[in-house]
Each structure stands twice: as structure tokens, then as C-alpha cells.
């Protein structure tokens, strides 16, 4: 499932200079565009793009892959082909699917084909913005009529350092790692397994 070739580039980066990536894309134009980009980026010697349906015709290689990655709508249909592309022992497979139903079918197929260590997970990336935050100190009034300070006393040595209080403005400042207001919630589930 080459698609844009984004993941392919990352994989090529990882296996260079002695490894090779075999990627299959069933859309002819996308396959051609991918080939072009690999050429432009000077990595075409490290990758082979095959234009076919991996579910029907497989990867074009057998018994050599250290790992197989599937990013297609019906990965369960490609599990058998993935197995024959993988090396005899110890190869790893990963399937990426947005829907749990796809995951269920894929896990079943993996089991049927004798894969072991089948494990589904998802990873969420949480990004934080580093911000200096100022919070106001509330006015709780005075405990008594005299001038003794009450509540948060910023001249008190124990309150020095961080957070630092600004008595003029009545605020406390501190650094915080603030989550983004809108973060990516879900892209897909990752299912890993071993051919053993």
C-alpha cells in the first residue's frame, strides 16, 4: 500500500545501504509517481515498486522479507501472501487499520496462518506547548484590621524561586507544558505478529 510513499521513504532510510524495500501499489498512477519520486530522491536502487493487487498477487518475492507492513483496506486478504514473502523464521508483520472490524478479521487470519505473538495496540502522540503561565492570586481580604499580610506572602523566603509571585500584579508565574487544544485522537490500530 505505497500510497504517497511517505512510510516507504522512512523504511528506505532505515534499511539503507544494504537493505531493500519491495512496495506494492495497485493504483497505476500512484505507483508511477512513487517510482519517480524515489528516483528524484536518489534512492531508487534501494526500492522496487510493483504495480499489482497484493491481495491477489502478493509482493513479488518469497521467503526473504525480514518484515512486512500492510496499509490496505483488506489486510486479512493479504496475510497469506505476506507469510510467503517473509523469511522462514522470525519475520515480523505489522498491519495498520483504522477500524476495529478490520483488525478483528486480520487477527483471525493471522491466527489461521500460524502467526504467533499476535498483538494489537495503538499509539497516541501527545504534543505539549511550552508556555509561561500567569495565574492571578485571588483577593481573600484581610484576616484582621492591622497591616499583617495574609495568605500568599511573596516576600516570604519559602515562596521565592518558582513559582515566582508578582505582588504588584498579584500573579504567580510558572512554566508549563500545555497540551494542544486539538490533538489527533486516532489514526489506526497497529497489529504485530511473528512468523515462527
Amino acid at each position, binding site marked *: 500500500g505505497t500510497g504517497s510513499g511517505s512510510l516507504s521513504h522512512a523504511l528506505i532510510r532505515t534499511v539503507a545501504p544494504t537493505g531493500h524495500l519491495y512496495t506494492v501499489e495497485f493504483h497505476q498512477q500512484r505507483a508511477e509517481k512513487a517510482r519517480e519520486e524515489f528516483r528524484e530522491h536518489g534512492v531508487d536502487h534501494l526500492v522496487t515498486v510493483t504495480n499489482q493487487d497484493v491481495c491477489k498477487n502478493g509482493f513479488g*518475492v*518469497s521467503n526473504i522479507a525480514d518484515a512486512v507492513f500492510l496499509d490496505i483496506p483488506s489486510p486479512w486478504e493479504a496475510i497469506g501472501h505476506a507469510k510467503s514473502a517473509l523469511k522462514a523464521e522470525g519475520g515480523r508483520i505489522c498491519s495498520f487499520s483504522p477500524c476495529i472490524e478490520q483488525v478483528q478479521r486480520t487477527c483471525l487470519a493471522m491466527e489461521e496462518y500460524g502467526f504467533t505473538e499476535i498483538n494489537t495496540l495503538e*499509539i497516541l*502522540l*501527545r504534543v505539549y506547548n*511550552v508556555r*509561561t503561565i500567569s495565574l492571578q492570586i485571588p483577593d481573600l481580604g484581610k484576616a484582621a484590621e492591622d497591616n499583617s499580610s495574609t495568605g500568599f506572602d511573596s516576600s516570604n523566603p519559602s515562596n521565592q524561586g518558582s513559582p515566582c509571585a508578582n505582588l504588584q500584579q498579584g500573579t504567580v508565574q510558572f512554566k508549563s507544558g500545555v497540551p494542544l487544544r486539538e490533538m489527533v485522537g486516532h489514526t489506526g490500530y497497529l497489529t504485530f505478529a511473528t512468523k515462527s
Partner: protein
Amino acid sequence: AMEGGRSPGPRICEGDCAVLKRDDVFKAVPVLRRRKIIFEKQWFYLDNAIGHIYGTTFEVTSGGNLQPKQEVEETTTETKEAGTDNRNIVDDGKSQKLTHDDIKALKDKGIKGQEIVQQLIENSTTFRDKTEFAQDKYIKKKKKKYEAVITIVKPSTRILSTMYYAREPGKINHLRYDTLAQMLTLGNIRAGNKMIVMETCAGLVLGAVMERMGGYGSIIQMYPGGGPVRAATSCFGFPKLFFDNLHEFPLSKVDSLLSGAFSTETLPSEPEDNALLEEESNGLTDEKQTSLQEAEDESATEAAMEISQTEEQETMDINAEDVEFKENKEKENKENVREKQRKQWERRKKLIETAALLREKNADGLIVASKFHPTPLLLSLLEFVAPSRPFVVYCQYKEPLLECYTKLRERGGVINLKLSETWLRNYQVLPDRSHPKLTMSGGGGYLLCGTTVVLDKGKSDSSSLEALKVEEPSSKRCKVQDLHC
């Protein structure tokens, strides 16, 4: 189509570091004959495993020997008698008719785990009333307990990082494996890089970087104290050539290297060595060069001790016949001293070479993952990195990275700073029984990453401190012709 041969894969060899696996439990062990191993409440010897392919599953026989597990057909009963729900099942702890002693007797007879599970099912009064799901769960649980199979797997970053996080997270500053994976990608770790790695994760991070680099390129490992810890690194089983371009440099020398004051102490050594040392040394400084000095003092004392021991021996051997023996002994001791000095000289030579590599200030990336506060590390080690290169800092806690971020903004010379963490959620996927299992968030550590740029010492970035705006736009297009593999 390209065909791979059906070659079975690497075999377990004596001297290897292998990983024992049972379900989700891993343990790294050295493969040695007649060495008793304890794993998952079982003890055994690895002798019989030697020669088998990695990935083979074994059973432990009585006597503590390993035997490859035979492929057995799963007995599936044609019609599984099962109930619909548990409303009439009373959990009184009496539904299993076999006692502890009965089970022990079966075990002692050498009855295989699979058979024991079968016996337990047959002797359970409630089994056939359970729902199919409950029966499945019951069988899985019993199998886990009684079918003690062990798989021997070849170490890899995936396996070792999972193992360390489960068994000894303190040793790796609670660096979870998905965070480590992020570091390798964000750091663009790949063959041919000149990497600087500073870690106190037992050498796990170093091993992961070495695995990615495949022996190509070079790594300079910065270390605190007397020497780098590479316990986990040796588990990977890398070929010797991977270590040819692995260098190390003490953190305690970093400041002097940056200030230009770095030198190695000149010590009385072989005449031909002095010439080399004079060449490299900038002359002695007032600065105390702790670790190297200590190492040199140590070996000098050792040499001195050996000489005095020899003298003792000589006063005891008054026999004239031993004159030749004495002469040989003296020669031997002189050789020992020379050997020690030679080794010292070797170490010093390497130190100078590594210092020269650092001085080039052209590293392709920096990885920091340690128990130390990241800010001082980053501020100094970034000096050795070329512009337009990635760096990644791991910290178990978020707050030090907040400070690091702020200090980096003040320093300048970095863009695209990003502070992140990854949440990991495991799922149980079974027909009609799929649901999340476990969430690991907050427990995997935090990452700060960014890209170096040419440091314009004229501009100060402190003005942007007060108005920390949204992150600067990242360059969306990089010039294609500048990329090379």
C-alpha cells in the same frame, strides 16, 4: 520473482546472549554449558538448545533438560457442551475435584502439561456449565500455568527494550519501548551517521542506535564517571566490526574540550611516546583532570606495587641457583609494567583521537537519555553537532524538559522544538470480545526534539521568552539535491 532460500536462520551458539521467552516474559541469559538457569519458576540447562535455530520452543524435562516441543494437534471436541451464562454457577472453590497432591503426583509422574490441563477440565464440575468464552478463558489460564514452554529468541531492540521496561525499568530511566522507537525516528538514526550518544540506560539506547546503523558510520558515546556502561549493548550480539567505530569520551573533559584547554597529562612513558604527546598536548593546565589522572595514578601505583612485590620475592629466594629465575622474573615484571604503560598510552591515544572527532563539530545528530538534568548536557553537547541536524533528548520527567526548552530558546541555534510523549494502549482482539486491555501513558517518559541551525551569536532570543508564540513554521520543502543516501 525474487526467491529466498529456505535457509532456517541463525542458530543458538555457545557464548551467545540469548533471550528466554514465555508469553510476555523475557529474560536475557548467556548460553553456557552446565550453567543452571532459573526462569519462570523453572530451572534447567541450556546445553540441549545449542545448535537449534533461534525461535525454537522447548519444554523442560525432569532433570532440567530442554527438549524441542513437539507440534501437537489441538484436541477439539466435536460438540462443545457449554452453558449460556453464570447465574447458576456457584464459586465455592470446590468445583475442581483434583487436589493439590493429585496434581503434584501427575507432575511427578512426568505427565505433560497438556494432559494435566485435560485432567483438570474433566475433573471440573462446573466446566460444561461455563459459556464457551468462559471455557476458553479457563483453558488459556490453565495452559499458562501448566504448559511450561520456553522459546529462545535472538535479541533485538524490540525484545531487549520490552524486557528492560518490564524487568528493570529503573536501569533505563523508565524509557518505554515506544518512546525509544520515536527517538530512533526523530533522530533520523541511520547507517553512515556520525552520532553522539549520551545515555545512562545500561547501554540499551546505544545498542538500539548501533542496530539501526548496521556498523556503518561512527558513534561517540559520552559517559559520566570512569567508563561507559554497556551491559545491554553486549546482549545484542553485534559482530565485532560494529565496535570498530564506536568511541567514547568522558563528560568530565567536555568543558575543557569546548574551551580549548583540553590536553592529556604527560606521564613518564616510552621515549617514542613523548614525541607524540608533546605534539598533541597544549601544555599542562591548572585544571584538575580527574578521571584520566585517577586512571594514571592507579596504574602507576599498581606498577609500583608489583615492583615492591618482586623485591619481596627476591629477598625470600636466597638460593644462588635461582639467579636465572630471578633474572627472568625481573624481565617479566618489567614487561608487565611496560604492558600497563602501553595500555595507558593506547587509552590516551584513543582519547585524543576521539577529542579530535568531537572538535570537528560536525556530528549528524545527538541523542541524550540519562538520569542527569538534560539542560547542561544539551547546551554543551549541541556544540559538537553540525547545523541542520536533529537532536532528541529523553527525560523521565517533563519539567526538566520545560527548562531545557527555555534555555535552548535563549541560546538560539535550534528550530522546530517539540515536546511530546506517547501513550500506548494494548487491545484484546477476540471475536465478540474485543476491548482495550491496558493503557500506558505518562509512564514512558518525555521527548524534546529539534533541529540545529547555524548559530547567529549576534541575535539574542530572550525577547521571545515573554511572548512564547506558536511554534515557528517548519520548513515544508527541503531541497531535494541536498539529500544524499
